[in-house]
């Protein structure tokens, strides 16, 4: 047990250095950008019939265009819930979320779906791809959904796969790819539409640390080159240190916003629900 902590602490230390580099790159460009996602007193209560769980107890945050934000916090503190409510995947109990100046409260399910199709990209830990489609077919899916012509869609999907380093793997099915390759396909799919915001819920959670670093390199490069906004939930300090800003959560609230270069402690991240 102790040995494990030691290893993690070493990683923590390393992470701090690389995060500094990321920060510098970011600070020069972002000042003129206004916020693309903003929440105001966001509350989310799950009613399971028997019990009510207050997963979000009033979260007000603002994410700027082109920013790469990491969300961290102990398990069960509401990170996934926050991501889902901000992206319109889940309904809001109280408060408001503005995406690109539009309040999600005023949108129907279909309109929210449209916004997701046109302005958002998603990377999840598991179950990212449709097993019955080839890699390129998975990637072109969002394009087809937002009305791009099939030929054009195929071309852009192939380019995107090349960009994530999967040239030549276009016609493999997910089952025929490794975990890292699958996640690259997911990233390609999340970005092919050139979305304004990319949401990631533990995108590297299922990968070994080398692969996870490669994936983060990729994400950072794309964020830099395309000026896209990234909101990434992660447990991995190596991942978080590459963000421009880390928002930590605790017990359904924002705990603190850490400036670039400062990382939360392991003790905080491992703190479970019991001691909250």
């Amino acid at each position, binding site marked *: 047990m102790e040995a494990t902590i030691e290893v993690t602490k070493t990683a923590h230390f390393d992470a701090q250095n690389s995060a500094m580099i990321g920060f510098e790159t970011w600070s020069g460009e972002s000042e003129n950008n206004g916020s693309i996602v903003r929440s105001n007193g966001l509350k989310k209560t799950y009613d399971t019939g028997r019990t009510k769980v207050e997963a979000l107890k009033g979260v007000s945050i603002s994410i700027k265009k082109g920013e790469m934000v990491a969300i961290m916090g102990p398990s069960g503190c509401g990170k996934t819930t926050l991501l889902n409510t901000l992206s319109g995947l889940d309904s809001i109990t109280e408060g408001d979320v503005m995406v690109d100046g539009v309040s999600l409260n005023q949108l129907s399910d279909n309109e929210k779906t449209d916004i997701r199709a046109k302005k958002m990209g998603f990377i999840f830990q598991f179950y990212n791809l449709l*097993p019955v489609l080839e890699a390129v077919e998975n990637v072109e899916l969002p394009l*087809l959904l937002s009305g791009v012509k099939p030929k054009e869609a195929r071309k852009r999907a192939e380019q995107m796969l090349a960009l994530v380093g999967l040239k030549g793997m276009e016609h493999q099915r997910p089952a025929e790819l490794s975990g890292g390759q699958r996640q690259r396909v997911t990233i390609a799919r999340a970005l092919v539409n050139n979305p304004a915001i990319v949401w990631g819920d533990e995108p590297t959670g299922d990968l070994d640390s080398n692969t996870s670093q490669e994936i983060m390199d990729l994400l950072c490069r794309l964020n830099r080159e395309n000026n896209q906004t990234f909101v990434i939930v992660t447990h991995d300090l190596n991942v978080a240190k590459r963000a421009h800003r880390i928002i930590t959560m605790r017990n359904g609230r924002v705990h603190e916003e850490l400036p670039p270069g400062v990382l939360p402690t392991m003790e905080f991240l491992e703190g479970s629900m019991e001691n909250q």
Partner: protein
Amino acid sequence: MDFAVLLTVIFAVVLTAILLSGARNRITFKMGMRNIWRRKVNTVIILSGLMVGTIIISSSFVVRDTMNEFVTDSVYDTYYMDDVVLVGKAVNGEEVYFNQEVMDDVEAVCGKNADGGRGYIKDEVSLSHPAASLFEPVVTINGVGYETSSAFGPFVSNGNEVEISSNELWVGENLAEDLDITSGSLVIIYAMGAQHNMLVTGILDAEGRTEDGNGIFVALETAQTMLNEPGRINMIAISNPGGVRDSVGEEQVIDAIDEADLKDGSITIEVLSSKKADIELEKEAAEGFTSIFLFLGVFSIITGVILIINIFVMLGEERKSEMGMARALGMRQKVLRKLYLYEGTGYAVFASFLGAIIGIGVGYGVMYFISEFMTSPQPGVQWSLLEHFTYTADGLITAFVMGFFITLTTIIITSSRISKINIIRAVRNIPEPPIDKGSKKMFRTGFVLIILGALLALMAYSAGGPGTMALFAGGITSIIFGTGLILRRYVGDRIAMTLAGIVVLVMLSLPFEAWPGHLVGDMDMFILGGMFRILSALMVIMFNSDYVVKFISFIAGKGKNGRKALVKIAISYPLTSKFRTGMTVAMFALIIFVITIMQVMVGMFSYNIDAQIDEVSGGYHIIGNTISDTPIIMLEETIEQNELLAPEVVGFFAPISGNAIIETPDYPDEQPFPNQFVGFDNDSLENSPFKLKTYMDSYPNGEAVWRELMVNESVVVADSSLAYDEYAMEITGYLLLGDKINVLTKTGSYENLTIIGFMDSFVIRGIIQHESLVKDAGIYGSSQILIKVRDEGKSSEVAKELEKAFLANGLQTIVIRETMEEQLGAMNQFFDLFQAYMSIGLIVGIAGLGIIIIRAVTERFKEIGMIRAIGFKRKMVLSSFLIESTFVAVLGILIGVSLGVVSGYSFWLEDFKEIGWSFYLPWGEIALVGFMALAVSLLCTIPPSYKASKISPAEALRYE
């Protein structure tokens, strides 16, 4: 009962063995039993799926038992307490009166085996009731009262037992009603050229001895006087111990009579008929009808089996990780298999039991349909099937045990495959990988298939005869599939299996004639061919699924880009789960295949009704038969003198014909029977209007056969009703080409006449020879005539007028078109019924589809969340599932329809083209069935698909 007992014993042994094994593996047994009840809804779905086979078997037994009851009931009514009936026969074979003292000899011969005997007269007279101006030309007169015991039961009038004394006249209830007779009415009996005026003593109730309520009853002496046969009788009946339905000792009585060789002078006393033999005969006739239900049922049973496989494969998949865990924790494969065995046994027992019971209900439904919606073969007579509704313990037990074994076998085979799961793949829920190209196992399986197939084909080929065509074709099919498995090593799955599939598909679509001539195919070939072709079509589609997906999404995706993605996903899913989808498609295909063939046949019959009429009628419109023995002599003159007939009748055919007795020495078990001896003149033989159905090979064509009758007095042509026909639904003749018969007439007998042809028609009945020979037999008039009318629309009027004009001859007419259309209508109704019955199988297919969609929704829960996240609207999720089920159903329907049409076409090529019919496809009807099947399938898949569309993406993405 024997078969049922045997089955029950086997069932008991197997069940005991399983229970004993369960007692030794108590924990596994308990786990298996617990699995059954784990999820109530699941259990209900599974049980209903497993029940189907048993329901089909059970209901077809109910149909059989009810039909048997229905057809035998009238036999029991006619015989009542009589069991064996004897007649006296003259040297020429005619039935004649004999001395009533013979009764004593008969009694002595029968001894203890008989309860009693009765000598009586049963003959025909005419009866009129002048006060009501009603006349009945043929009435059965019964001369009764000469009985050695009371075993034959009493006569009953108004509920009271009555005696029939000398000079009394009793009338059966129904006859009385027809002729408006009440007790005290004055009636006239015409017998032997004399009239007898009599007052009716009373009316006999239609029950017991007079169940049919027809005929008149007088004392024996009275009948003897009337018929000029003093001291003589023409029949003896023997009653065996036991009641109406459970009499015993019939064989002994018949043997004793045969052995005793009783005589009255030159008259021999012979057994005419017996209750038991008649019952058997009726049952045999009903067999044809009931076996169709079982035959059609086979297809539904197969779909039921496929459903069972589907259900258990899915149960297996659902429990895969659980099972994998159990295996990882050290549960051995054997134990896993046992677990499935116990669980399967539990399911099989419940399902078969319920299925056998529900089958009674389905059988009742079939019977209800027939009696409510169908006209019976005899006009005016209702099918009183519901009154005779019967199910027997025998049928129920057989259905239960057969259903149990079908279910259990399927479960065991399926679960032995499931239990061979790969532990790691199972725990991590990774799909089984495709079998790799170099697989030695597949290669070896290929060789085994080729060798087994070759052996089977060789055996079938050298044996020849019934059933061998199916075996031969099965062998060849196995060789082709085997070759495919070997080829895949060199050219890959797609090419090898596609080729094998196409070759089998084409081969089995060939008409039966294309196979070696000495192999005989029947329904077995039909069932097997249908199944293998569906399997091959599925193989071709599944191994080319990529192209199918591309093709369909290309077509569907024209115009809207989003739709293309949707369609591609929707059909990629089922084409990826090849086994599951293939099974479901096969269910639809099998049933639709059979229904399509039925519809092609019905459509072709209706479309070609004119051709059929031409074929049988020889160009005539009305058939006339004289029912009394007074043939028409002056047909042409009478017509010409009749104002109404003269202008309307434009032609007639009136060969001389008269009564004769036909003996068939080639068939010692068969009784001589009365029929017509018909003489054609030179002209009719030269240009016979009638086609022959079959004729001996030694003649080049039908014309040559007819001409042979002009020069050869030892050959005859017979009408089709005398020919043996294995496919007919009613009792047919038993004669074959080349059989020798004797024709006995009033003036003598003509022996050893060879049948060289059978007519393809029922309009002229009898044995046909040149008229010179028939005239020698003392036959000059025509008892059968055919009339051609000027205006077919007036056929009925002309027919009525003819009956009037030839009243003295007792002419009865039939308008050929009306009869044919009626028959067609009756046939259509039967096909309707069969289709309704087949729809049980269709329901099974739809249930199968419903189950895989329900499964798919649960399985793809997370994927649904994901596609919702990346921009699929709710409606699109709904459509995706609906497109998927439509795709599966339509694929099955298309395969079924196209194979059915091909089969219908080859039937036409084989049997109907040569007789001048055109091929006709009832597209509308076929499409209607297809659309209905699709519509119901969609209705059933809407609820789970809707549920899928309502899944919250956030919820689904969290789902563990």
